[in-house]
C-alpha cells in the first residue's frame, strides 16, 4: 500500500476494499531492480558501524554483498544465523535509529542503504523457496529446557537451543505463539500473517514444542519448571497495561491501544471494526503511533495523538512521527490528560497544557477538551511479577547478569521483561539467543 493511506473519495465511509488496501504492506518488497541498485551501493565497510548498531550483530555488509553477487539464499543464512527473526526485524525494526542510522552513506550521500528492505528481500526469498530449514540441529544432548512465553525472546531462545541439540518446551499463555509480533505490531508491518508464518519457520528446525493456553501462575509455577527441566528461560514481556490514574478511565470507550491493535491483528474482516468518529490516543511511543495510524487507515475521521511532552521526547522515532503526520494523525504535544469526560460512554478528554520548567514537567493551568468517541491508552506496560517472587526484580524488570541469568541459578530471562536496552523485537531476539548460548555453555560445560 505504501506510506500514504487511501481516503474516501466520496466523503463517506471507506469501502472494505480500501480498508484492506490500507492494511497491506506499508513498504512493499523491493523489486529486483531496486534490490540490485541498493545492494550495489553498499560500500562493504570494514568493521561496519551498521553491524555494531544491530543488537543481533547481523553481518550486514556480508549479506548485502551476497545479494549483490546473486547468492540470496546465502544472504538469508547470514541474516538468520545471527537473528532467526530476521523477517520480522526487516519489517518492524526502527532501522532509522539502528543499522541505517549508522550507515556511513548518511555522511557522504545523505542517504543510507535500505538495509531493512534488503534483509526482507533475502529472508523472504529463503522462506518462500527453501524446501528445508536452513539450519541443522546438533546431536541431541538429552537435555530439555523450558521457555516461558512464545514471543520474540522465547522463540529466539528456543530456536538457538534446538539448534544446539536441546529439546525445548515452550509455554505460551495466549492462544497463538508470536507475542507482540502476532498481537502487538501494526498490521501493515506484518502483512500476510507473517508472524504465524515465521513461528512455523522457526519451529521447523525440530525439537521445539509450543504449548499454548499455558499461563505462568495459573497452569504451572516457576518451581514446577525448575523441578522438571534442565534450565528455564523467562520471556514473558510486560503484560500489565499502565493506567493514566485520572477520573473517567472506567468509562466505556476507553481501552488500551495494544488491545485495539490486537483486535485489528486478529480480525478476519477489518471493515467490521468501527472505533467511531473521534479517536484520541494518549502516549508518545511506537505503540501510540501504530494505534493512531491504524485508526486513520480504518477510516476514522479525526485521530488525535496527545503526548504530555514535546516531539523530541517522544519514544516514537522521528520516522514514526512523520508516518503519523503523513497519515493525517493530529499530534498534540505538551498536553497532559487530566480527566476523561462522559456519562457511561466517553465524550471528551480534558487536557492541561504542560511545559518544561528547569527540566521538570509542570502544568500551565490552561485546559482544553478534545471530543472523543473512543480513547486509546498507550502509556506503557509493566511486568507482572506476582509469580516470580523468588527472583530479584529491580525497577520493575527482572534482574539478570551479563549471561542473562536471573538471581536464581539455571533460570534465565530476556526480552522486554529485563532491562537490556530498547524494548524492541530485535533486542528480545538478541537476549533470547544470548541466553540460549549461555545455557548451553552451562549445561554442557
Amino acid at each position, binding site marked *: 500500500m505504501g506510506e500514504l493511506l487511501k481516503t474516501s473519495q466520496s466523503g463517506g465511509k471507506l469501502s472494505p476494499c480500501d480498508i484492506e488496501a490500507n492494511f497491506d504492506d506499508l513498504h512493499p518488497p523491493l523489486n529486483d531492480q531496486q534490490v*540490485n*541498485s541498493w*545492494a*550495489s*551501493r553498499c*560500500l*562493504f*565497510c*570494514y*568493521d*561496519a*558501524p551498521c553491524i555494531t548498531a544491530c543488537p543481533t550483530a547481523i553481518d550486514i555488509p556480508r549479506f548485502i554483498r551476497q545479494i*549483490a*553477487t546473486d547468492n540470496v539464499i546465502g544472504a538469508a543464512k547470514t541474516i538468520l544465523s545471527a537473528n532467526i527473526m530476521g523477517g520480522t526485524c526487516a519489517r518492524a525494526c526502527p532501522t532509522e535509529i539502528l543499522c541505517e542510522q549508522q550507515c*556511513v*552513506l548518511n*555522511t*557522504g550521500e545523505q542517504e543510507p542503504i535500505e538495509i531493512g528492505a534488503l534483509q526482507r528481500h533475502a529472508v523472504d526469498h529463503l522462506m518462500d523457496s527453501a524446501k528445508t530449514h536452513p539450519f541443522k540441529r546438533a546431536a541431541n544432548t538429552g537435555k530439555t529446557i523450558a521457555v516461558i512465553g512464545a514471543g520474540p525472546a522465547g522463540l529466539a531462545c528456543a530456536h538457538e537451543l534446538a539448534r544446539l541439540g536441546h529439546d525445548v518446551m515452550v509455554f505460551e499463555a495466549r492462544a497463538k505463539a508470536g507475542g507482540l509480533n502476532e498481537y502487538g505490531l501494526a498490521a501493515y508491518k506484518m502483512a500476510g500473517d507473517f508472524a504465524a508464518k515465521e513461528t512455523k519457520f522457526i519451529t521447523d528446525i525440530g525439537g521445539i514444542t509450543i504449548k499454548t493456553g499455558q499461563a505462568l501462575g495459573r497452569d504451572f509455577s516457576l518451581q514446577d519448571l525448575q523441578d522438571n527441566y534442565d534450565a528455564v528461560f523467562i520471556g514473558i514481556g510486560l503484560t500489565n497495561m499502565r493506567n493514566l490514574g485520572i477520573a473517567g478511565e472506567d468509562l466505556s470507550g476507553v481501552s488500551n491501544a495494544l488491545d485495539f491493535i490486537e483486535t485489528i491483528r486478529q480480525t478476519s474482516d477489518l471493515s467490521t471494526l468501527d472505533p467511531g468518529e473521534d479517536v484520541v490516543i494518549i502516549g508518545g511511543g511506537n505503540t501510540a503511533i501504530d494505534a493512531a495510524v491504524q485508526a486513520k487507515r480504518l477510516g476514522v475521521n479525526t485521530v488525535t495523538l496527545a503526548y504530555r511532552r514535546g516531539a523530541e521526547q517522544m519514544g516514537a522515532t522521528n520516522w514514526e512521527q512523520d508516518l503519523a503526520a503523513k497519515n493525517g494523525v493530529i499530534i498534540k504535544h505538551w498536553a497532559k490528560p487530566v480527566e476523561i469526560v462522559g456519562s457511561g460512554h466517553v465524550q471528551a478528554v480534558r487536557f492541561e497544557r504542560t511545559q518544561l520548567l528547569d527540566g521538570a514537567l509542570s502544568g500551565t493551568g490552561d485546559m482544553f477538551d478534545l471530543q472523543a468517541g473512543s480513547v486509546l491508552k498507550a502509556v506503557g506496560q509493566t511486568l507482572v511479577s506476582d509469580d516470580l517472587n523468588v527472583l530479584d526484580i529491580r525497577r520493575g524488570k527482572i534482574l539478570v547478569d551479563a549471561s542473562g541469568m536471573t538471581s536464581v541459578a539455571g533460570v534465565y530471562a530476556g526480552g522486554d521483561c529485563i532491562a537490556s536496552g530498547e524494548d524492541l523485537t530485535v533486542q528480545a531476539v538478541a537476549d533470547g539467543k544470548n541466553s540460549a548460548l549461555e545455557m548451553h555453555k552451562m549445561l554442557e560445560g
Partner: protein
Amino acid sequence: MADLRCSIAGIESINPFWLASAPPTDKQYNVERAFEAGWGGVVWKTLGVDPPVVNVSSRYGVHKDLGRGIIGINNIELISDRPLDVNLREIEQVRKNWPDRIIIGSMMAPVEEQLWKELAIKIANSGVHGIELNLGCPHGMCERGMGSAIGQVPELVENTTRWVREVVDIPVFTKLTPNTTDILLPAEAALKGGAHAVALINTLNSIISVDLDAMAPTPVVDGKGTHGGYCGSAVKPIALHMVAEIARAAETQGLDISAIGGITTWRDAAEFIALGANALQVCTAVMLYGFKIIEDLNEGLSDFMDAKGYKSIEDFRGLATKNTVNWNDLNMNYDLKAVIDKDTCIECGRCHIVCEDTSHQAITIETTENGREFTVVDDDCVGCNLCLHVCPVPDCITMEPVDNGLPYQTWPEISTLRGE
C-alpha cells in the same frame, strides 16, 4: 568553442569522432542517424568478397560490475552479411547526402593479392575517403585465414597494405589486432607496406562469461559458445598503451593514428589525443547509449580545450607522449604520502582494510568519541595510491609529495652508484 576539426592521413574531419567499423555502421539507415546526431565520420562495417557471410543468432555477451554497469562487450558477429553491391550503393548515397562527413571503407579478404586489389578498387569507386584494412577480427573470420590471422603475421600485414596502396589513390588505414605480443611489429609492417595511418585496437580475444546453467561460454548459440572480440571501457587501458607505444617509437614515426578502444567520454578522447592519436573511433559506447553521446563528446572535449587554452586538437596532441617513458627512466627518489582529510572522511574503513590486508599496514584506526579516525603512518606509506582509489569520497584522500631534497635519479643511475 575550441576548433575540433582534425586531420588524419590527409583527411579533414569536422570533429575527431568517427564510428568504428561495427554493427552501428552496418547500413545507410544507421550511418545517417549517426551523422544527424553529429558524428564526424564512420568506418563502414567491414566488407568482404561476395557471397556475404552468414551471422549466428545470439552475438553479444557483456562483462558487468556488481552494479550492473557494463564494463565490456564481447561479440561473435562477423563482417557485413549483406551483398557487397548493396553496401556500395548505400555508401554512394550517403556520400551524396552528407558531403561534409567522412566515410572510410573497411575491408577484408583471403590472402590473395588479386582478391584484395579487386575489392579495394570496388570500394574506392564508391567514393569513400579512405580504406581501412581489417586485420584484427579475432573470431570466426580468423578461422578462415582473415582478420587477426593476417594481423598477427607482420609479413602479411605489410603485403596486404601494399596490395591496397598499389591500386587506390586514397589514404589507407591498417587496422591492427591487439592479440599480439608487441604492437610495434605489425605497426612497422603497416608502415613498410605504405599505410598512411594505423587504426587500433581491434577487439581482444576473450570468453566474456560462462553460463553456469548451460555450462557453455556466452553468448550461447544452441548450447555452445566460442571466443569473441572484447571491447568497451575495459579495454581502454590496453589501447592507450598500444597507441602510446606506436606514438613514441622512432620506428613508427610518420604513421598517423586512428585510436580505438573503449572511448566512452570526452576525457577518454582527450587522453588518446594526448598520447598522440590524430583521430578517434567509437563503437561500444554508442552500442550502450545510442548516438546521442556525441553531444557530450564534442562539448566535453571543447570545454576541456577551452579551459586549458588549447585552440585546436594539434595544440595538445601528443603532449603526454613525451612523458610516457620506460620504467628505467622514472625518478626513484620521488616520494609520495597519502593524506586523509578527516573532515570529509565518512569512516567506511576501506582505506584501512586494503592497506592492512594487501599493502603496507600504513593506515591506523583510532576509535574516539567522535567516531573512527583514520591516520596515515608516513614511515610505512609507500605512496602506492591504493587507499585513494578505494576511497568512495571524492578528494578525501590525496597524495602529497615529500620534499626530500634528493635529485632525479633513475634505477640505472642508482644501480651504477651501488656498483652493480
